[in-house]
């Protein structure tokens, strides 16, 4: 493991969200409650506010929290905002937190970046998924399609710029392509021979084969989550049958332990 020359945490404050006040308050509360465990610079990316007045109100919600503001337009989704930020800062590592993020444990950033310091690690995140969007668009790889979800992910700034620079970011499909597409962030890391890791609250780094046993995204009570978001909260609130269907959609047969004993290429898990 190695240390980095600067870590930037980018939190997206999105004014176009219905409940942007609640989202910001939730994030600030959790950020103050849980020490990151490692020196970093917090950037808040203000985006999509209907008026300057709203944006000003949003800034006041951060209270005395030390942060550097970044303003960007609302026409390029969250990944576009992270790219804007990556081009403006000079820290070596960037941790991207979307507007719904809620930090759930102490030392969360130390755990995330420690995983990124592991030999060969290219992209780390609090959550990963095997879900495939092939039914929406045939370009996507079929199930299982292991990818790190773009909320609460950390990677080197140069990797983020390389992966996003020049790519269309205008539609939701563009966004999905980058998150889980065949040339997206996770797939391109794997193509370079680098690892994509999910990091649990216990500090363990899970390779894709172990994701369904990480007790994180859409598994049981999700008790090992490092950072939560609207999707993880929604899963918590689902009724049992929906929870089961969602878990199955995300992990499929890989929820069963015996799949671990098969060689990955036989199980359809290629990374």
């Amino acid at each position, binding site marked *: 493991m190695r240390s980095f020359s600067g870590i930037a945490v980018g939190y997206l404050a999105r004014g176009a969200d219905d409940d942007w006040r609640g989202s910001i308050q939730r994030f600030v509360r959790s950020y103050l409650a849980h020490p990151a465990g490692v020196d970093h610079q917090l950037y808040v990316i203000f985006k999509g506010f209907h008026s300057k007045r709203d944006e000003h109100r949003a800034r006041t919600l951060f209270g005395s929290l030390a942060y550097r503001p970044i303003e960007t337009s609302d026409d390029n989704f969250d990944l576009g905002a992270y790219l804007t930020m990556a081009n403006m800062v000079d820290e070596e590592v960037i941790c991207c937190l979307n507007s719904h993020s809620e930090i759930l444990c102490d030392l969360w950033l130390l755990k995330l970046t420690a995983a990124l310091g592991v030999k060969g690690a290219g992209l780390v995140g609090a959550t990963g998924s095997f879900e495939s969007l092939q039914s929406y668009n045939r370009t996507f790889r079929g199930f299982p399609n292991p990818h790190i979800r773009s909320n609460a992910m950390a990677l080197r700034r140069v990797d983020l710029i390389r992966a996003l620079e020049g790519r269309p970011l205008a539609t*939701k499909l563009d966004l999905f392509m980058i998150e889980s597409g065949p040339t997206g962030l996770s797939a391109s890391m794997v193509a370079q021979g680098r690892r994509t890791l999910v990091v649990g609250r216990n500090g363990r780094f899970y390779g894709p084969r172990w994701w369904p046993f990480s007790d994180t995204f859409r598994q049981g009570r999700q008790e090992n989550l490092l950072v939560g978001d609207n999707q993880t909260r929604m899963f918590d609130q689902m009724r*049992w*049958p929906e929870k089961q*269907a969602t878990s199955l959609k995300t992990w499929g047969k890989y929820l069963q332990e015996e799949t671990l004993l098969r060689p990955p290429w036989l199980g359809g898990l290629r990374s």
Partner: protein
Amino acid sequence: MKGALFHPGLMHGGYSVDVPTHSQRTILAEPYATIFGWSVDDNGGRGTVVLRIGRRELTPDVVRRVDVRQALGPRVVNDDVGFEFRFVAPFGISLATLIRTDTQAQALRRVFLVRFEPVWLTRWRSARRTRGLKANEHPTLRFSLDGPKPTRLKLMSQPRLVVHGWAVDVASLKAVSPTVLLDGLAQPPHPKKRGDVQCALASLGALPEETGFEVGAELSVGFHDLDVEIRTGDTVVSLFKGKVLRLPSMRSRVHSRSYEDWTELEAKLHAHEAGELGAHIAAMLYKPSFRILVAPGGKGDLEETKRSLASQIYPVFTVDEGSTSAIADRTPADFVLPLAAGDRLHPAALYRFADRLNREPDLDMLYADEDRWTAGRRTQPFFKPDWSPDYLETLNYVGAPAVYRASVAAGLQAFSRYDLALKFTEQSTRIGHIGTVLCHRTETSALADTVGDIAALQGRLRRTGRTGHVAPLVAGEGAYRIKLSLKRKPLVSVVIPTAGKVVRIGDRTLDLVVHCVEQLRLKTSYAHLEIIIVHNGNLCEGQERDLTAHKCKLVLYDKPIFNIAEKLNLGATQATGRLLLLLNDDIEVIDEGWLACMIQHFEKPHVGVVGAKLLYPDTRVQHAGVVHNSGNPDHVRRLAPRDDHGYFFSTSGVRNFMAVTGACMMTPLAVYRAVGGYSEALAVSYNDADYCMKVRQLGRSVVYEPAAELIHFESVSREASLDIGESNFYHQRWAREVTFDGFYNERFLTVASPTFEPLVNPRRL
């Protein structure tokens, strides 16, 4: 003899379910359903079968089946081997389980019954308009809903529903996004490219390419409301308004396995995971140190224990020989782990503790599941419940392995492991449970020390300000029963909702409510009671006279629609006692000391609800605690014999559960009021389990008391039914809590029915 079948799992007997055939679901458009077939027991006689639907249990009509006798020859002694159940199916979706009871209870067939009223179909307004191309329908909107297909009721067996189509506003030449509401919740539509629409409407102007929309949603089994509409300003155009019914899947691709099979798989998995765990240990930010105290024992046993310690993959530990009294001595460590000579720790045991402590560093105590090491094999797994303070007074269920924070344990001067568990948990309630078997114990290492255990429990009583008697439940088994001398004798307000029914039970005619009150006044030793009868205004003169003679308060419930929660809440408003006993009128007392047994638990400040052991009139178990199975509350160990001890004394000993039945439930009146009583949105079902969940949210425990034994003529006073709306309400309200039942391991114990028998089920979440 249609469908005759000798079940391969039966040695001699056999059965056939002729109707329904192998279909696992039956859709009914009328109330009556029929299930028939035949069953032959091991001796060639009539096999006994019952049909369970929800909480109802039905016995069949006997049918002569000459064809069976002819076909099976001399093996079959009688003709009367046929059975037929004709019954009223509950409205909505229910599970009917056909159970053979002449041998060990065995489920023969499970059938999902889906009952609906045909009149519904005509009432459902399917205001669906899948085409909106005519200008006079809307001045500027053009749209098409391509799916779901136009049917009044959409039936689905797969979980995924896709709503798709396109919509444009030809005035602004922009795509319009519809609102898709599934069960009232908005589902965000994803834009889709629709070149065909662009071409077709080219004459109207340059439309964007993405005029399409698509919404995908996962549906649970049952009915769902689907609304698709386009809102433009004040105008709402409805594209679809109807219902979707998702039916249960007929196939289960993953099967359950035995514990022995599981241990083989688990060993392979451990070997497979070792490298991953090693990397985690190297990267751990917090490496807790463990001091393992191995109690003196035989040389061979000690060596076995030490060998298992030598194979630990987590390296930060020391080993000392000594008993729990030596905890304060010698090597400092973060946690101490006492073991008996002969206990074998799983190679990943210390790692699992360290892993959990990295996740939850505030925990002071952690325990894990265990099994027995017998003749070189792992057997008798004990899948323990989550922290259960009242169960700990029945037996040392924490057992081994358990780690205790050394700084707390050091001053306790515990003389045994049971004493340590009791004393420690009086100091800290930051206690975690790892639901994995991490210790394999031998008969000798798990041997109970009855004298020491009783001394530990008596110490517990002294320290918690209680006086009473501790006696073994069964000699030498390490399980105990505490009978307290009550410090106080609080007034108990008994609330009995009644419909004033007189019923025939066996050869007796019972006036239920009068009989129930007589049981309380004449057959119950605890006399400090006030009895509140909540009636519907239809008590006869004789009933009123008898109840008044027994000094009952009569409270009139005059709402036209049955709501048991409202009735109980109304009764509770009249209560003045410190404790409230909610009691069905269809019960009968067996032992006069039952009420005192329930009251004694309220001498512990953490107890919120106490439930009783209820028996069917034939004395088989009807209620011994409520567990959750796929989020549904269900009675555990139903139909077990009265003297059954259950899984590690879960039936014969005091134990914690997530819920107990409301048929006989005691709770402090202050707690009842603090949580707002029963939830009146749950008129018929789930209200008792819901109440327990609310009380648990206050941090209080729910206790099952087996010494409070009553006969319960279940659902004699009212037909059992299940309301889908109430089911949905309960599931939604307690979505997170019922994900897993902390008091019943759904993964490693039987779930249909929850009989508390080890069975490794496929992982579902």
